[in-house]
Each structure stands twice: as structure tokens, then as C-alpha cells.
């Protein structure tokens, strides 16, 4: 059931090269492209490793002080309903991080969430199999299995995971959460399976920034694949070689 299908890296490179010759989106005007909208998969169809969901954050469009993505995430998943936890204990799926280059003084503001690693350390260390990666690259915690040992929190280089310290009420139907389990950004898997975008992406666009785009990195025609192909983008802590699904532009 919980067999972890690790996409083949060599195959990934091949697909990457394939992208160079595959047809791109339709050009409407110079610089304006029309990309195919991701189709929702039929409800009874399992997710496939042909897809690799990812996000690209353009930090040049993300402004310091804007918190739209964080607010949208909290609302979407019903976060922030802890009554007794200290601030440092409250669940955070996504947070804003302000960077300042010590020498140049350049500043960046960027959202950081679970990076949906291709080779996730959280999955490596999980003793129960609760941390797992779906075939389409989304890393999740199966809270039916999680024993709350928090090894994954220690292993995650991005501090992406939170532990629920208390009994909760008022959960959203699509995001069950409870005491004693670890949780993190789900890439809004409930939306993605319906063919919708994650809540943060939607909120950022609605706010006019459009700093985060979401899509299938394996689909050469998707906007995200085109962007990462055309512009330099990087991973946070690229040195770890985790091949994250969340990439950043401008840092």
C-alpha cells in the first residue's frame, strides 16, 4: 500500500531533455503565453509518477510584509485553532522568511513550506512508514500511522513540520488534524486531486503578486516547466541534493 515509488533520476533527465523539443504553450503576443490548464484526474484513478507537482516562487514579486499565502493556508486547513500551545508550538504549514545578504545588503522575502523533496529525509527516517511520498511527488504524513515520534521534524532541513500538542476542534473536512501527530504542507493535495491550485498560490495571485506558480514539472508544456527551463531557479539548500519540488527564482 505505502510502497514509495522513487522516480528514476535518469528518467527525469531524459524527460527534461525531451522538454526541449516538445511543443510549448501557445504564444498570444510576445511574452504572453497561454498554457494548458491542468486536468483533474478522474476520482477513481490512482496518482501517477508521470506527474511531478511543484511550485516556483519568484522572490522578486514577493513583498516583505505580505502574508496573504500564510493567511490563506491557515484558513484552508483550519490552522491556528490551538488553545494552549505556545507560539513556537503552533502548526505552521507555510511561513514568511526575510533574508538579508550580509555584504550587499540585498533583502528578499519568501514563503517557505515543505519543499516536497524528491528524496525526502523525513521519509527516510520515519520508523513507521507514516511519512511517505505519493507517486506524483507530494510528501505527506499518514496520520493514521504516525506515532508522533518527531524524527521527521529533526530530519527535515527546512523546518517544515509541526507537531500537534493538544486536542483540536473545528477541523476542516479535507484536513483532518489531531493531537499527537506531525503534519506539514500537503501541497493542498485535496485541491490538486480536483484539478485546483493550492490555496497559497490562489491567494498570492488574487493579491496581484502572482509570486508563486504551481504545476507539473514533468509536463514540458506547463508554465512552471517552461519557467524553470527558461530562467535560473534554485533550491534552498541545493547542496543537500534533495531535488525539491518547490523552487525559487531570484535568491
Amino acid at each position, binding site marked *: 500500500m505505502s510502497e514509495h515509488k522513487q522516480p528514476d533520476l535518469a528518467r527525469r533527465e531524459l524527460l527534461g531533455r525531451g522538454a526541449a523539443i516538445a511543443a510549448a504553450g501557445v504564444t498570444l503576443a510576445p511574452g504572453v503565453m497561454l498554457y494548458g490548464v491542468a486536468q483533474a484526474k478522474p*476520482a477513481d484513478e490512482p496518482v501517477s509518477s508521470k506527474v511531478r507537482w511543484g511550485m516556483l516562487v519568484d522572490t522578486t514579486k514577493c513583498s516583505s510584509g505580505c502574508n496573504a499565502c500564510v493567511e490563506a493556508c491557515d484558513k484552508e486547513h*483550519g490552522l491556528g485553532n490551538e*488553545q494552549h500551545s505556545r507560539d513556537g508550538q503552533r502548526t505552521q504549514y507555510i511561513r514568511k522568511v526575510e533574508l538579508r545578504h550580509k555584504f550587499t545588503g540585498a533583502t528578499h522575502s519568501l514563503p517557505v513550506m515543505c519543499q516536497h523533496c524528491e528524496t525526502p529525509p523525513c521519509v527516510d527516517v520515519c520508523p513507521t512508514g507514516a511519512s*511517505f511520498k505519493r*507517486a506524483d511527488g507530494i510528501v505527506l504524513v499518514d496520520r493514521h500511522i504516525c506515532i508522533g515520534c518527531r524524527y521527521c521534524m529533526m530530519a527535515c532541513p527546512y523546518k517544515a513540520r509541526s507537531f500537534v500538542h493538544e486536542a483540536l*476542534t*473545528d477541523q476542516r*473536512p479535507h484536513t483532518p488534524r*489531531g493531537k499527537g501527530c506531525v503534519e506539514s504542507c500537503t501541497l493542498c493535495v485535496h485541491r490538486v486531486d480536483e484539478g485546483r491550485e493550492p490555496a497559497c498560490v490562489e491567494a498570492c495571485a488574487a493579491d496581484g503578486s502572482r509570486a508563486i506558480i504551481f504545476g507539473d514539472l514533468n509536463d514540458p508544456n506547463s508554465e512552471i516547466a517552461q519557467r524553470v527551463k527558461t530562467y535560473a531557479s534554485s533550491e534552498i539548500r541545493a547542496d543537500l541534493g534533495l531535488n525539491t519540488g518547490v523552487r525559487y527564482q531570484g535568491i
Partner: protein
Amino acid sequence: MKRLLQLLSMAVLALTLSAPALAGEGGRTPLPTIPAAKGDQCVEDTADMRRNHMKYLKHHRDETMHQGIRTEKYSLKQCLECHVPAEGSMAAGGKESEGHFCVNCHVYAGVTLDCFECHATKPETTAQFHPLVSPAAMKAERPDSNGLLNRLVGVTENKTGVAHE
């Protein structure tokens, strides 16, 4: 032990028969209240669902969680869609006495591992927790096997079978 078995078989028998018919005044055994659901027929026969709903749910939960299969049949969300009114069976609609479909039976049967420590107890619009599994109620004692026995033998002060606060 013999008494326990007797009582258990009584409970099973009572559950198998139509609950409202027996739950009426004069019934010797207190029974859980089963609020009415949408539609005529559940996804399987009632008897089958009574015995096996947890197996169906568990199977479907693994498929949903790990493979993203989100069909409605056997999904917990769909149970709630039919069995629990969004507009609060507990608060709105004056149906408070009827309680929550799943929780009523779970309390009656002493099932402490139910889904609702994590899952919402109501369909979308007003997703809220049943008072029973609110943190306050969680502190309150869950019925242990003795408490359950007492109930079965006829502790009748609680006619709905639900420990309302």
C-alpha cells in the same frame, strides 16, 4: 463472564432489529438514537454496514491517502454527507436530542477509537466538533467497560444514549 456475554448478545440483537421500534418507552434496554439519514439506502445493506463499515472505511482511507483515489463510496466524508446535517444536528434545527449518527453508536458500544479526534464531525459548511469530542468532553471520563455494562443493565437517566454535558 456469562452475564457479559448475555448482555452483549442482547445488545447485538437489539441493534440488529429496528432501533426506533425497540427504543420506545418500555424497552428494557437503552439503545442508541439513530438519527435519520438522507436517501433510502446506504452503500451496502444495513446489516453489512453495521458489521463491516470500519473495514470499508479503512480500505478506502488507505487508497485515498496513498493513491489519491477520491471516490465517494466508502469515504468518511460521504458518510457524514448523508448521516449528519451540515447545519448542525447538535445545534440548529432543533434536533439536538438526536445527537450524532456515528458518535451515538460509538459511545453506546464503547468504541473509543473513533474517527473524530481528527476528522471533522460535520460536512463542509459548518465543520465543527461534536460536543462529545471537544477538549472539555475529552477530559470527562469515557465510558469504560463497567460503565458500559451499567448502561446496558439499565442506567436510564440518559435516554438518548449520549453523554451530553
